């Protein structure tokens, strides 16, 4: 139930993010979700795309350092307190969230958030036990 995310190493330079997005766009890769973590000198661009294997090959072909890694896409009630309810369950069960970000579009009536967990399998088990919806890779392509 994990989905694939691409992480790209980027220097903190003007126009760099645009160049990478333009590269993917011109290759017909559609970005479904995106976030940038940055420091003074460098950043990590994290994206969920429709064709991750192809996209990572395109990025590497352009000389960028890019990796594939696994994240969990979780459905969150789109109402005040929706996210806090999930975080409360995770925290109560000792699951650590490394980072998270949101999808632009919805898959259902609920909002879709991406989580990077320290122990993804444990987190998936706990979320399932609590009847919280997790969206798989195939579903992501349909968004």
């Amino acid at each position, binding site marked *: 139930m994990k989905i694939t995310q691409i992480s790209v190493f*980027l220097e903190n330079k003007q126009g760099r993010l645009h160049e990478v997005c333009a590269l993917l766009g011109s290759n017909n890769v559609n970005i479904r979700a995106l976030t940038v973590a940055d420091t003074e000198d460098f950043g990590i661009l994290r994206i969920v795309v429709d064709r991750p294997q192809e996209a990572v090959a395109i990025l590497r072909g352009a000389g960028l350092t890019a990796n594939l890694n696994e994240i969990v896409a979780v459905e969150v009630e789109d109402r005040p307190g929706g996210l806090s309810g999930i975080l409360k369950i995770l925290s109560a069960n000792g699951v650590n969230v490394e980072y998270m970000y949101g999808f632009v579009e919805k898959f259902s009536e609920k909002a879709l958030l991406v989580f990077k967990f320290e122990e993804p399998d444990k987190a998936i088990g706990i979320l399932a036990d609590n009847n919280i919806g997790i969206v798989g890779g195939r579903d992501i392509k349909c968004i």
Partner: protein
Amino acid sequence: MIWNERMECMPAGRMQDLQSERLCRIVEYVYSNCRPYREKMDASGVGSRDIKGINDIAKLPFTVKDDMRRGYPFGLFCVPQEKISELHVSSGTSGDPIVVGYTAADIKLWGDVMARALCCAGAVPGDMVQVAYGYGLFTGGFGMHYGAREAGLTVIPASSGQTKRQLKLMQDFRPRILACTPSYALYMLEEARELGVDPRESSWQIGIFGAEPWSEAMRGEVEANWNMLATDIYGLSEIIGPGVAQECPRKDGLHVCWDVFYPEIIDPVSGLPVPEGTAGELVITTLTKEGMPMLRYRTRDIVSLDRGACPCGRTSPRLSKIKGRTDDMIIVRGINVFPSQIEHVLLRIEGIQPHYQIIVDRKAGKLDDLEIDVEVEEGIFFDEIKKLREIEERICREIESVLGIFVKIRLVEPKSIERSEGKARRVIDRRTV
């Protein structure tokens, strides 16, 4: 086999006596026969009387390449031109060319040290050697030639270039030994494959490679592709040409012919000896040459010296591979920094490619800053800022422990460091001093 067992295996104590006796004689000889040396010694207040043994060598002034340029062409010769039997000219890649002169006795010495080198690499009398070093003003070809003749080898004086012909000579004559620059050995590899010659089937079993710095990675490539033992030889025209030091098949340092070429390792800035085993600039004194002896010649090559016993039986100290050149050295906050030191640290960290650049800067009124840009490749890229920060900190810590100064590490994208002719520019010095 050991070609000159008496000299190559002499116990260190007796060697010291011999070196002492030879040093006293050469200092006296140079003082009486060469005006620039005499003037230099007089100016520094050292007379031949002050030199009583090899341990007094540090009292003598250094000789540098500029001394040779100033004396161009024959100014540093200790004999009149009619006593010189051969002249060689070193390539003037950095400035004017320099001239070296050999008497008949010097040529004989050259043959002896080169015979030692060939045998040290594994040659035995009767072997055939293909000399693909250039014959001419460059010392490589003739030095190898004299040594091969002296050691009773069959010489193919192929000289450099004409790769197709080199490969044909190898296939038709089946020489066991190849002598050339390591980069030419790699170049011939491509040519061989294009001609449909299987390099692993070549007759060459031993390579004697030198005249340029080369890495262990390059050695591995030559050995695996040619299926031969690749040994390193060291020498420089100013001293004699090839034959100053040579690796035995253990490939654990180059045995120096220290009965005739006395090595010292100094701090290139202070000129003082470095602690035993530490890297520094190699300084050589020729103890027996007649035509153009050198007293404490600064080679500008950075090496370390290992005095530990070698199982091959030779008692001579061993030079490390060249770790750098003093020409590349930068001084940051009074500390000597060689790009190669930084490279060694980076290569020790798993996943790091040696693509880096050193930037030295000085902001007004502040201390010098040393920044090292390191390209991030897949081997060290993680999806977490925390882990990337850990890598920065680890590089920083390890470099600090080697150099003793704080450096700023900056992770940069692959290929973002400027390359010229395939090689990255290692140092950018932005200081305006």
